[in-house]
């Protein structure tokens, strides 16, 4: 059974590319466009990995991440943060709040696929 991935980002163009690429790589992909929708989708669909944009309306990525990590039920869920701000300190904040990886925009699409694969196969 193929692994499931949720993409949570309010930027439709990037969602479009990532969805296409990850489907091509053999994953089952769902999308959400804000923090609360992402939480609902995760509860419903139980994905294996979530790509979380930091800047989202109605709960930002950090908040979603913290909520997920405080819930034992999602212990195995992998979280990858996406952000447009490339500052070291934000990366650190994401990782401190429990993210498994952190990707800065702009990114090489191949890089995202590789990191996702790495996390899901580990």
């Amino acid at each position, binding site marked *: 059974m193929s692994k499931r991935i949720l993409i949570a980002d309010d930027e439709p163009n990037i969602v479009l590319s990532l969805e296409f690429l990850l489907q091509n790589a053999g994953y089952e992909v769902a999308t959400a466009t804000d923090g609360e929708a992402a939480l609902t989708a995760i509860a419903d669909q139980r994905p294996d990995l979530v790509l979380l944009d930091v800047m989202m309306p109605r*709960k*930002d990525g*950090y*908040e979603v*991440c*913290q*909520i997920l990590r405080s819930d034992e039920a999602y212990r195995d869920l992998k979280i990858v943060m996406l952000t447009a701000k*490339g*500052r*070291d*300190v*934000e990366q*650190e*904040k994401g990782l*401190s*709040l429990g993210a498994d990886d952190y990707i800065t925009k*702009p*990114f*090489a699409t191949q890089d995202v696929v590789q990191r996702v694969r790495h996390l899901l196969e580990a």
Partner: protein
Amino acid sequence: MRRWLLSPRGLFWGFFLLVAGTISAQFLVIGTGTLPELADGMPRTRFIQLLLGTWLLSLLVLGFAWRELDRRFVRPIAAVAKGAAILTHTDSEHSLEVPKGHWLQELPTNVQYLGDKLQQTRNDMEKSFASWSERLERQKQSLETVLRELDAAVLVCDNEGRILLYNPAAQRILAGHEALGLGRSLYDICARAPVEHTLELLQLRRDTDDGKAGSAEFVCATTGHGPLLHCRLSLLPAEDGGFVLGFENAGARIERLVRRDSALRHAVENLRSPLTNLRAAAETLSAGHAMDPVTQDTFLTMLERESQALSERFEGLVKVSQERLSSRWTMADIRSRDLIDSVLRHGLEQLPQLEQTGRPLWLHAESLSLGFLLGHLLQQLKSYGIPYVNVEALLGNRWVYLDIVWEGKPIPADTLSNWLSKPLAYGEGLTGNEVLERHDSEAWSQEHGREGYALLRLPLPASQRQWEHAGPDRLPPRPEFYDFSLSEQRAPLADLASTRLDDLHYVVFDTETTGLRPSEGDRIISLAAIRVVNGRILYNEAFERIVNPERKIPAASTRFHGITDADVNDAPTIGTVLPAFRNFVGDAVLVAHNAAFDMKFLQLQEANTGVRFDNPVLDTLLLSFYLHDHTPEHTLEAIAKRLGVKVEGRHTAAGDATTTAEIFVRLLELLRAHGIETLGQALGAAEEIVDVRRMQSRF
């Protein structure tokens, strides 16, 4: 006895004798004149008895009257006079000792009253003098402390550019500059033209603009390999009052700015080419031209390659601009503990109980806005139900993490971001997020490594100071870093010989050598000197160098001074040290013990170093001979003992130079007492001794 006779009481009783004598003489005359013509009816014996009786009686009455006058007037007046003298001329509290029963009425009481008043006035004056001088001294000490602790470098110079004051910050920036010293010329340190130009400008401005000169900035170079200085010059108010020069090392700052500017420009320029290519390729593709698959593929590859290049260059730009952000001018170094303490001192209500642990670390931050943010966060934590927190600073690569730790759960991210979006009670209603942004930072709450604990973390820029060694302060607690009386001396250079010894600057020096024969190849291995200005030894204006003699050091000489071949291996050679020493000496008078010996070593190096010492030279050995010709003992120890100088570090160049300087300062005082006041006279005295010695050695 004679003194008593001449005293008022002596004279008083002298008068008594005179009057008594006169009366007696009258009685005698009356007696001898009347006796032969005495009527026969009166018996002679009876007459003589009567006469003698009357005589004695009048003497007795006279004596009694005189004694009473003595007791009631003369002695009391003498006592009052003596007491008044004591009251007038000494400070002691004195009570008049006036014999009882005098007839002076209120005089002693009034004199005593006047005396007491005088004493009281004196005491009051003394007290007020003392409190004034104490206040002055306190102010002086505060000023000294301010100058010493001032982070900005300051020099004060007189109009000729002579240095009257420098502070430790100036010493740090001009580290190792031999010409920095009291009474030395500023122009030995930095270029003359920009300073004089600025002075002229300010003087002009003062003359035309109602005496208001303000200050002016300029950049100037230092001599040697010293730093570039960014200076601010202001005139002192008096007509020829000199000027104050504040400065900082501009080199590092300018370099940083230039580097950052060029990096930024470069990074922006770099975006242009991939952008152009991308746009051209996208437009070509979207124009709908018929295109064979190979060409189309080429275009697509190009799109991919160029967008990748754009991403990379964009990262470069981000990095450069972040560097720019992280060194804002509003930021300053502050210790984490001081920051927290300042928040606590604000007396904010509703703070949790707070304890600080760990070593304080240096931050580079905007302490005021950050203080408000911390206060705000602590208040929020308290109202969130956290009564007790522990604040700890941790060191990361580029950050200092300020962790507020408590027992319990982390703060939910939405609560925290709510706290951070509230305007602070500071300035223009800045929010916590904005303060964090200024520091290029973010805050978050997470679980603590310790079970059951959580923390709120504020990563803050770490200061470079963290990694710098503070280095021992070279200045003693009360350093001699200023001397304003220097400005009252006129330049002595014109006629050295007639210059007073007190007005000259001296460099007292000593060398250690490989042996005693300079002309047979012995070399200097250690050279130390110290400056003496205005009769003061400037202990922090010292010069000390080990010199590589470029030959083996004989064991015999090592026993003497303790310097071995290993000690000098990495030391500079005389070719490097001597020019530096020349700079240190400037135009001062050279002083050494047995100066001829040391000068010989210096002069032998003239040819290969190109450094000449044509300064006047004074020799403490010869001066001691001149002043104390009663003894043949004129070694450094013997003179030191004679003059009460404590000897330390004998047979090290620095120790001997200091001892020689202390001896020299005392010799200067003795020379003045011997009527030797100018340099010419002192040199003459030394020559005299040399002549005497030469004569003696001939016999």
